[in-house]
């Protein structure tokens, strides 16, 4: 039917951006700075493995990784079009951006599925 999927991509961009805005700051602050620098006590390996065993946590982590990547893919694609005037490479850019997001999402799903 040739229906464009831009609205779907924008929806993914929006939800992904919201997840990134609400959750990435705290997660990055803790895992990237507070725990490595020792400002706060890092959770133990056993505790984290216990957390990740819950299906709900797996679901959370899947959306946590996947949707912000689609946010990046959509936004970065347009930044390349407008910022670097690369619109003539539209198919290549779209494939690279959404392809990366898709394959990484599949990798995340596989990792989460196979953690006991």
């Amino acid at each position: 039917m040739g229906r464009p999927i831009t609205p779907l991509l924008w929806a993914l961009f929006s939800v992904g951006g919201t997840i990134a805005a609400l959750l990435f700051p705290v997660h990055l602050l803790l895992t990237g700075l507070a725990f490595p620098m020792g400002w706060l006590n890092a959770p133990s390996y056993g505790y984290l493995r216990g957390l990740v065993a819950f299906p709900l946590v797996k679901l959370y982590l899947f959306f946590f990784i996947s949707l912000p990547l689609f946010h990046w893919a959509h936004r970065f694609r347009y930044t390349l079009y407008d910022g670097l005037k690369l619109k003539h490479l539209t198919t290549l850019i779209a494939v690279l951006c959404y392809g990366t997001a898709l394959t990484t999402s599949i990798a995340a799903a596989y990792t989460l599925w196979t953690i006991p």
Partner: protein
Amino acid sequence: MSGKVQYTLYHPKWYRRHVSVWWWLENRSYTTFILRELTSVSVAFFAFLSLWYLRALAQGSESYARFLQWLRTPLFLTLDSVAFLFILLHAVTWFNLAPKAVALRLQGKRVPDGIIAGLNYLAWLMLSVGVTWILLRG
């Protein structure tokens, strides 16, 4: 009507300024816009880092310990700090712009932008506290 109008568009003597690829350096608003758009790179960076983190966790306590060592290196501490600043920029610009897109109307009147943004910030605060509490319990 449309035939005549099309013809005048191709008038050769009209001056058409070429838009440079550096258009976004021409004024501050454009530059802050591109910076805002580039925050998506830090979002992708942290998404990838999180996946790597998960895989290290899945592969056992030794690979997890090695991954934590990586996070303590100056390279990653710097990358994470820069990414954190950009992700903060993303969050702030996102919450401040959300009311424009949402345009909620209650009982016929538009809900003020400040309230929608405020609710977003509140959710941000509550979720941050919740995540911190969960992670600090172990």
